[in-house]
């Protein structure tokens, strides 16, 4: 244990960090700007100046930048030294010289790192009497607002955007105090992580544009820990709400998962919660019209329907575990459908099986960052699991970090390490049909059809472990490539194989698992990660159930009288013909959802469910991590959680028909989870994803509003001037008001926001961590249902069904889904900014096949005329079609006919 002396106080610290980190970890208040835990130090802002003394006898000392000075044993420093204090005060005074007088109209106000630091240094009087430099702003697209006058030139934005996230359209221009951080010209920031600039920027240069339209100060908003519902990675988020509307989503630090950063879909995709497409009252379908009815009427209607015959339930991979399980408890396993097609379900169940029996490790996102050789097998992770893609991007730096270690350069010395890294080779191999966002940092970016990639994967597995089945008829080039990749993987200390079900291909995932299993023989740290499509795909795979095809068969046979669909848009899974057939064959369809889906028009009964921000529940991420999200918004009466609707439906039935009779007696979330644990023992730990609802800190509930939330006695007074009791929920240990406990030591799963006076910005997070960049003070967040370390003694079971190579066909092409970050995901497309960011669907073809500007694609549901654009590197005979954007249900590869239509010019 290293120890340093700060202002005469001995503080234990750890070796290998810089003095700024050491000071912050010791609880000292030392201002800083350019340093960021994830970005390291560059010493650009000069704000963290402290006095360092060479020994106990040194009384004079010298000023050093804390962020650039490594901790060494018996370092003696002083933060309070008058000279250092004056130095810091003068630095901030210089920074404030050109700062505009606009805090009242700045979205950062109240959670501004610059405000905090200015107060911390004691700068409160302006001495500069001359004119201020000004800049013109740019329109940076629907996500980020630009206000350059507020800039203090800390360079964090470009360091994050270019160096960390790999963007190239944000840069620094001009010179001296004119430096300008922006794009070369106005335009949307292209990078998928541009939203993080809002949190990275220490002041109000980059602010949240959608949030600005419904702006509220940080202290006024109720916060709740939540989990992102827009992909299967399971990033932790904070949701902020005021006046029972969701205002914004912020990143919530989870040391294993998303850490400091969130993708733009997660940050800006929450708009569906407040969208006009929300269902807010029960609806009854009468003669093709949806008529609002009361809750009691809805339940009696249901009881009448249920008396007609068999009830079948369709769950959803985007619904919380509790909702799916309650439906399971209502209808029983014989009539419980996962709401996925057979192909989807087989893929997710295969993914679960492969992960569960993987002999190596199942790495967390943070562990992936330190993988030193990565193979991505047929998955565009930057679109399907963007945050995972960002972690893979960081893994490319491993070589430079090892080089830095050898050169005795601390890893946080960012500029030096990145200079070293310019020379270091990448060990990322991207084998996909279409270009991905990782190609620019990949050592190898190979384009091939999914089956060919799977074959290559099996070949790599065979090259690593001869016991794995060989691939016949492999070309000479591919054999060599497989051997090269196998060699790179075997040389690595922590290799990682990533695949997924983007192309619905079982062989791809099996090939990935085979490589990982073969490697795990010699390297137990070998990681395997399989990307799933939806936020609770893994949870549903662990529950199991019938695929949609079986429900279709039952419906055709007339066996279903009532179909309950929870939070699932079947039109995204079934072709329009199938949906029409289902609607015709089933007398009564009950839809429980928060957002209008096309099926609602045909439903006999539509029940308003709460969205993720309005209830508490559990989601299982693709790495098998059960995580709890909590309620921040308390919607008005008929809207309730999915499982409460199912329970209400169950209460209107004969108790003997229920699969789990306890269903009607559940009082809160903990009861549901207890029953879930009994029915599905592998899911039992999900109850420990977060403290139970009866958790109390210092004998109190935790508060979800700040202690200075305003407007308590007036905010509802236009409805009723008398005070209303604050709303509450039995499902969570939070009080909805400002009354309750709060502190840096509260359980990590219950952190509703970061504020630790005098740190009011998101940088207050430092106070909530044991070690900066390390675990939270309040312990772990979420619980893994699949062991992260794997089963070293498990015998690798290699899959043997190696696919045939993809053969070009004369009249048809293989249409592959072009999964898009903005556009393919269901819920985020209801969010106005994401919708604005999504580009119009277009078909991608190999350059050789592009013969006209538009072509007709004949999919299952009919012909689609699409603009065509050439995709460099796309293998011949393959077309890329945006998933869910052209044909709603189009999601997995299919063979389709492509028809050329003449261009305007040609016709004339």
């Amino acid at each position, binding site marked *: 244990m290293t120890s340093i002396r700060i202002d005469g106080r001995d503080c234990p610290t750890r070796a290998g960090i810089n003095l700024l980190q050491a000071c912050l970890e010791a609880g000292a208040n030392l201002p800083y700007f350019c340093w960021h835990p994830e970005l390291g130090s560059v010493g650009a802002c000069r704000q963290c100046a402290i006095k360092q003394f060479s020994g106990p006898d040194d009384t004079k000392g010298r000023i050093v930048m804390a962020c650039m000075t490594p901790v060494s044993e018996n370092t003696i420093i002083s933060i309070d030294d008058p000279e250092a204090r004056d130095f810091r005060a003068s630095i901030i005074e210089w920074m404030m010289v050109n700062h505009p007088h606009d*805090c009242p*109209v700045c979205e950062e106000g109240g959670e501004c790192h610059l405000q905090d630091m200015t107060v911390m240094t004691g700068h409160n009087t302006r001495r500069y009497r001359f004119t201020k430099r000004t800049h013109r702003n740019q329109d940076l697209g629907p996500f980020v607002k630009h206000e350059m006058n507020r800039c203090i030139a800390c360079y964090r934005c470009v360091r994050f955007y270019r160096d960390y996230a790999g963007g190239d359209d944000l840069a620094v221009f001009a*010179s001296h105090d004119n430096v300008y951080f922006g794009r070369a010209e106005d335009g949307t920031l292209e990078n998928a992580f541009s939203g993080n600039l809002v949190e990275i920027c220490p002041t109000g240069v980059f602010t949240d544009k959608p949030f600005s339209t419904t*702006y509220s100060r940080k202290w006024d908003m109720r916060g709740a820990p939540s989990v992102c519902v827009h992909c299967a990675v399971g990033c932790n988020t904070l949701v902020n709400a005021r006046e029972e509307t969701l205002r914004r989503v912020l990143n919530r630090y989870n040391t294993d998962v998303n850490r400091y950063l969130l993708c733009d879909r997660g940050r800006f995709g929450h708009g569906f919660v407040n969208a006009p497409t929300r269902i807010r009252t029960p609806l009854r379908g009468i003669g093709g019209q949806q008529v609002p009815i009361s809750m009691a009427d809805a339940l009696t209607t249901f009881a009448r329907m249920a008396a007609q015959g068999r009830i079948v339930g369709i769950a959803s991979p985007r619904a919380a575990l509790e909702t799916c399980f309650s439906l399971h408890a209502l209808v029983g396993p014989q009539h419980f459908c996962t709401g996925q097609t057979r192909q989807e379900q087989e893929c997710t169940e295969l993914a679960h099986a492969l992960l569960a029996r993987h002999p190596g490790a199942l790495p967390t996102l943070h562990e992936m960052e330190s993988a030193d050789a990565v193979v991505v097998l047929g998955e565009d992770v930057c679109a399907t699991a963007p945050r995972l893609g960002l972690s893979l991007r960081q893994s490319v730096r491993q070589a430079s970090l090892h080089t830095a270690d050898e050169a005795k350069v601390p890893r946080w010395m960012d500029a030096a390490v990145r200079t070293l890294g310019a020379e270091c080779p990448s060990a990322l191999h991207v084998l996909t049909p279409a270009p991905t966002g990782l190609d620019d940092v990949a050592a190898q970016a190979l384009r091939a059809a999914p089956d060919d990639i799977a074959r290559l994967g099996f070949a790599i597995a065979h090259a690593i472990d001869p016991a794995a089945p060989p691939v016949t008829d492999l070309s000479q080039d591919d054999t060599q490539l497989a051997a090269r990749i196998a060699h790179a993987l075997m040389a690595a200390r922590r290799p990682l194989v990533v695949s997924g079900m983007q192309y619905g291909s079982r062989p791809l995932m099996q090939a990935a698992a085979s490589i990982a299993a073969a490697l795990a023989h010699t390297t137990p740290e070998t990681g395997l990660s399989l990307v799933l499509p939806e936020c609770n795909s893994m949870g549903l795979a662990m529950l199991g159930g019938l695929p949609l095809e079986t429900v279709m068969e039952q419906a055709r046979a007339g066996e279903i009288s009532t179909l309950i669909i929870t939070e699932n848009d079947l039109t995204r899974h079934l072709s329009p013909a199938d949906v029409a057939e289902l609607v015709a064959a089933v007398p009564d369809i009950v839809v429980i959802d928060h957002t209008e889906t096309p099926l609602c028009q045909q439903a006999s009964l539509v029940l308003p469910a709460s969205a993720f921000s309005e209830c508490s529940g559990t989601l299982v991420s693709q790495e098998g991590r059960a995580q709890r999200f909590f309620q921040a918004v308390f919607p008005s009466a008929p809207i309730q959680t999915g499982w409460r609707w199912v329970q209400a439906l169950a209460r209107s039935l004969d108790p003997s028909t229920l699969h789990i009779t306890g269903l009607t007696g559940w009082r809160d979330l903990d009861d549901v989870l207890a029953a879930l644990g009994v029915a599905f023992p592998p899911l039992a730990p999900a109850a420990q994803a977060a403290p139970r609802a009866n958790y109390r800190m210092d004998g109190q509930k935790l508060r979800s509003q700040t202690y200075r939330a305003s407007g*308590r006695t*007036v905010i509802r007074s*236009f409805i009723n*001037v*008398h005070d209303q009791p604050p709303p509450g929920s039995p499902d969570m240990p939070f009080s909805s008001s400002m009354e309750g406990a709060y502190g840096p030591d509260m359980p990590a799963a219950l952190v509703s926001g970061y504020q630790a006076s005098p740190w009011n910005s998101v940088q207050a997070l430092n106070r909530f961590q044991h070690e900066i960049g390390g675990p939270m003070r309040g312990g772990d967040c979420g619980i893994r249902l699949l062991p992260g370390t794997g089963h070293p003694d498990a015998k690798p079971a290699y899959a043997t069904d190696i696919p045939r190579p993809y053969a070009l066909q004369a009249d048809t092409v293989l249409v592959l889904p072009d999964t898009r970050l903005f556009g393919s995901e269901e819920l985020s497309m209801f969010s106005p900014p994401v919708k604005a960011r999504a580009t119009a669907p277009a078909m991608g073809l190999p350059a050789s096949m592009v013969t006209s500007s538009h072509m007709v694609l004949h999919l299952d549901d009919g012909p689609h005329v699409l603009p065509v654009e050439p995709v460099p590197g796309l293998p011949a005979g393959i077309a890329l079609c945006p998933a869910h954007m052209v044909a709603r249900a189009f999601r997995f590869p299919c063979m389709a006919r492509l028809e050329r239509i003449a261009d305007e010019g040609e016709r004339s």
Partner: protein
Amino acid sequence: MLDTLRTLFLTALHAFHRRATVQYPEQKPYLPPRYRGRIILSRDPDGAERCVACNLCAVACPVDCISLQKTEADGRWYPEYFRINFSRCIFCGFCEEACPTYAIQLTPDFEMGEYARPNLVYEKDDLLISGTGKYPDYSFYHVAGIPVPGKDRGASERERPPVDLHSLLP
């Protein structure tokens, strides 16, 4: 004993003193301009709303009786709604002190009794006056460095015109 009698005598003498009571409402008392009475929202010298919906008055309010929502038009921030529950207001004037734009001001009017409490909930229409109130010349947007219609970027007080990024001159 004598002291007690003297007290009695002195008290009795007060019968001949002038009475201090002001016979309100027949007789209106003088209230100084800074008297803390009914709250109003004032306007800029050029007639636009001064309030920029910064929420500082709401957070300064000890009884939490102010609530507002920000909205924006042409770069100016406005309150979409601005509501004060005067049945809770204690007329402490903290909101006025917190206001960075002199928008919210307390006036020497206190005659706002109502028979029904809901009538004491004042909305923006009820609060907004047509004048500048106590600070006739102040305009926040002339000082703040963000452009509004009629004032381009770099045209605020003590500001230089925007930097030409393409210039190579130092």
